């Protein structure tokens, strides 16, 4: 299952974008991540952040033929999705914060 992930916010304030595929994970992690992705609260913005300089993630999928978006604060990320998001530092491309 392919998803487009953009991480925004943080102290640096730059956006990091990557297209990630659950096929990049071990079979067990992939199964858990795909279940977590299907159960995300799609078409919703991130909850109001507490504190400052926290990350938030935008996840986009075209699964099933139509595009869906969701924004998650980093404390809302399901544990099962963390192995997939851990691929972001090595695969992500920096974009300007406004990009």
């Amino acid at each position, binding site marked *: 299952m392919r998803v487009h992930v953009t991480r*925004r*916010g*943080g*102290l*640096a*304030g*730059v956006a*990091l974008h990557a297209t990630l595929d659950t096929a990049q994970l071990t079979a067990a992690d992939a199964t858990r991540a795909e279940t977590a992705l299907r159960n995300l609260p799609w078409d919703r913005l991130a909850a*109001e*952040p*507490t*504190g*400052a*300089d*926290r*990350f938030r993630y935008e996840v986009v999928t075209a699964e099933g033929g139509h595009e869906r978006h969701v924004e998650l604060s980093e*404390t809302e990320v399901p544990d099962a999705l*963390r192995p997939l998001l*851990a691929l972001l*530092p090595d695969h992500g491309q*920096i*974009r*300007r*914060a*406004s990009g």
Partner: protein
Amino acid sequence: MTAPYAQHCILPPGLLYRLARCDEEALRDAALNALALDGRFRLARAESAARLLQLPRPVTFAWIGGQPQRTIYDQQHSESQTPGVVMRVEGQAPSKDQAVNQAYDGLGATYSFYWTVFERDSIDGASMPLLGLTHYGRRYPNAFWDGAGHMFFGDGDGRILTQTTAGIDVIGHELTHGVIQHEANLTYSGQSGALNESVSDVFGIQVKQYALGQDVHSSDWLIGADVVGPLLRPALRSMKQPGTANPYDDQPADMNGYVPGGDVHINSGIPNHAFYVVATTLGGHAWDAAGPIWYAALADPQLRPNATFRDFARITVRHARQTYGASSDQTHAVQQGWEAVKVPLC
């Protein structure tokens, strides 16, 4: 989901509590969302009212203040939000862990700056313990304030950021987010969010300048120069020349470049540059006059959580006039600072 939520915003909490217990899931979710929002508004109003009351500080005959209460933890690369293993408490000898010692020293330098310059006793002005949580997450390229008394520091991913405890301005920045929360509690979005970020940079750079004994001309006015990885060199932000700190820096330097709906770290370049202009116009140390004017504005009860750049600018001018006089160099410098970034004062 959207329609019921909007309808319930004006309903009294009692009715919302009843709806939150009803059988219909959509209605229950909407009521819970509305209650959460309502709670934030009530909290903000209560905090604002408490600040306007100017409650007296407790009277004591003992000498208090001037001594931080630091505890540094090792999160052991977990993303747990609760403090991990205690590595160093106040007064203990240095640890073998460099990040732990950097956090300890950086929090100490920040406490010392706030106490010596403003006689502020810690984050809340009332001896709040300083809790630094190091080694947060795996290759975590960030440091943040959690809003609940903890400063988290990641080790960096080696590309965007390196060890975040290495930046004394970064530690000053994060601790200042706590100070802001206990003063104006600037809402973390829009112009008030950009102000929140800017005020953290303004005091973060002063903490660094104070620790290094730098005046306004010997400082580089760069934020994060000691924590950036190769992709963001030489720094995260430049207060002197916003938009030039690294290849991806898109901070505007004045209101002509204001980005509507922009991330709080983008538009913060505007008030950042205003402070730079004020401090360098006056010369000497940033904390001689510019810093105290900014601090007085932050602590002013009339600075509301949803303040705009203009609101903040007008309060800084008022404090400059009250403290130094209407025709003083300080007042003129503050007016010049906001004029330089095209924030109107009237």
